[in-house]
C-alpha cells in the first residue's frame, strides 16, 4: 500500500515542478507591452483567418475507437500472460489445453475485427 502512496505523491510532483517553473518564468521573465501583433496567434506572416477551434475530421476518432478496442484487449491478456508459464507447467488448476483454445478464440475475434476495419477502409489515412 505504501508504494501506491508514494506513487500518488509522484503524480503531483511532476505537476508541481511544471507549475513552479511556470511561476518562476512569470516572475523572472522579461516583460514587453502587450500589443495586437504580439498576442496574435502565430501564422507565417499572414493574419489568421477564423478560430482554431473548428470541427475536425472524423478519421482521428475512428483511430481512437480502434485504439480502445486493442488496448483493452492487451489489458485483458495481461492476467493470462502473467500466469502463462505456470499454467503451461501444470502448476495451476486451469487446464493448459483449454487456456490455449480460449486464447486462440479471443485472438481470432480481435484479428477478425482488425481485418474488418482494414477491409472497410478505416485504416486508410486521407
Amino acid at each position, binding site marked *: 500500500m505504501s508504494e501506491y*502512496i508514494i506513487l500518488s505523491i509522484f503524480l503531483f510532483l511532476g505537476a508541481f515542478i511544471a507549475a513552479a517553473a511556470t511561476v518562476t518564468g512569470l516572475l523572472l*521573465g522579461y516583460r514587453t507591452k502587450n500589443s495586437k501583433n504580439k*498576442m496574435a496567434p502565430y501564422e507565417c506572416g499572414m493574419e489568421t483567418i477564423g478560430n482554431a477551434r473548428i470541427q*475536425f475530421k472524423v478519421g482521428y476518432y475512428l483511430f481512437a475507437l480502434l485504439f480502445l478496442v486493442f488496448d483493452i484487449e492487451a489489458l485483458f491478456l495481461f492476467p493470462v500472460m502473467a500466469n502463462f508459464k505456470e499454467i503451461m507447467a501444470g502448476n495451476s488448476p486451469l487446464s493448459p489445453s483449454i487456456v490455449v483454445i480460449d486464447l486462440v478464440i479471443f485472438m481470432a475475434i480481435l484479428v477478425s475485427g482488425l481485418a474488418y476495419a482494414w477491409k472497410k477502409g478505416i485504416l486508410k489515412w486521407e
Partner: protein
Amino acid sequence: MFVPSITHPVGDFIREWVPKLSAYLPEQLQSQTLDSIAAFLINALLCIIAVCAVNIGSAPILIYMERKVCAHVQCRLGPMRLGWHGTLQTIADVIKMLFKEVYSPSGADKLMFYVAPMIVLIAPFIIAALIPFDHNLIVADIDMGIPMIIAVNGFGVLGILLGGWSSNNKYSLLGALRSGAQMISYEISFAMILLFVVMISGSTSLMDIAQAQDGTVLDWFIFKIPVLGFIAFILFFISSTAEMNRAPFDIAEAEQELTGGYHTEYNGTPFAMFYLAEYIALVTNSALAATCFLGGFHAPCIGVAAIDGYLQMVPGVVWLFAKIYFMIWCYMMVRWTFVRPRVDQLMDFEWKFLLPVNLVLLAAGAVWMIFVG
C-alpha cells in the same frame, strides 16, 4: 550468483534510527505509529529527491549529448564556445529560458494553456518511480508495474492534446491531433511488446522481470528466446520512438509543415517543460528497454567465473545507467540518420505492419513457451 545480504539498506537504516532519535522527544509525542509514519515520510522524501535529481539532472546532459551527436553525424563540431567543448552551453540555455517572457496568445484558453505542461510532466515522473535501479533500489515496487506504465503513458497524450487545443492556433491543433493519433496508435504495439515480455518472465512486476534475467548475457530477454527476442526488441525500439514523438516519427512537430506542432505558441518556461518531459521520457523509455530486454541492473556476465567476478563488483546502478545511455545513443543515432515518413505512411506502418507482426510475435512466443520454455 550475486545475492544481496540486506534487503532494504537505506529504508531499514531509517526505520532503525527514527525510534532511537524519537527517544529524545517529550513522552507524549512518543509512539510507534508516529515513528513508522516519520520513517515512511523520510524514505519518501529521499525517493523524491533521488528521482528528481536523476530526471531533471539528466535533461541538460541529454540536450548537450543530442547536440553533440547531431553535430558529429553531420560533420560539425556542435557547441564549442562555453566551457570545455561547450559543456556549459546547456546551463546558459536554461538561464536564458528562465528570463524569457511567459504569455499566452489572444484567444487562448488560459487555464488549459498552463495546465497542459503540468500534465505532460506527470507521466515520466511516475514511470521513473517504477524502474528498478538495483537489487534493492526501487521507489515503488508494485505488482502491476507494466500495466501501470501503459496506463500512465497514455497520460502524456492528454497534455499534448490540451496544449494544442488551448493555443488557438491552427498549427498547434493540427500537430496535437496528429501526435494524439500517432501516440495512441503506437501505444498498442508498445503494450503488445510488453505483453510479450510479461509472458516470458511470468510476472508484471518490473523488479521480477529484472530479476528473471539474472545470469549470463544469454539470459537477457533479447537473447533468451532466439530471434523472437531480438525482433521484439526492435519492435519495442520502433514503437517507443513513436511514443516519444521523436524523429523519425516526429510528424507532430514536423518543422517544415507545422512550424512547431503542439508547442508553437509556448514560450519561456512552459515551453521548457515540454522539452524536459520529452527528455525525461527518453530516459524512462531507455530504462524500460534496458529493464525488459537488456537485463536491467545485471552485469553482462559471459559465463567465465574469473571475469564475471570483476563485472559483478560494479554496482547495478552503474550497469543500468550504462545500458540507459547506450539506448539513448541508439535513439539519437536513429533520429539523425532516418528521414521522416509522411503521416499516412506512419499510420499504415503501425496498423498494417507493426500490429499484425506483433500479434504473430505473441503467438510465436506462446508456441515457444509451450514447446521449449
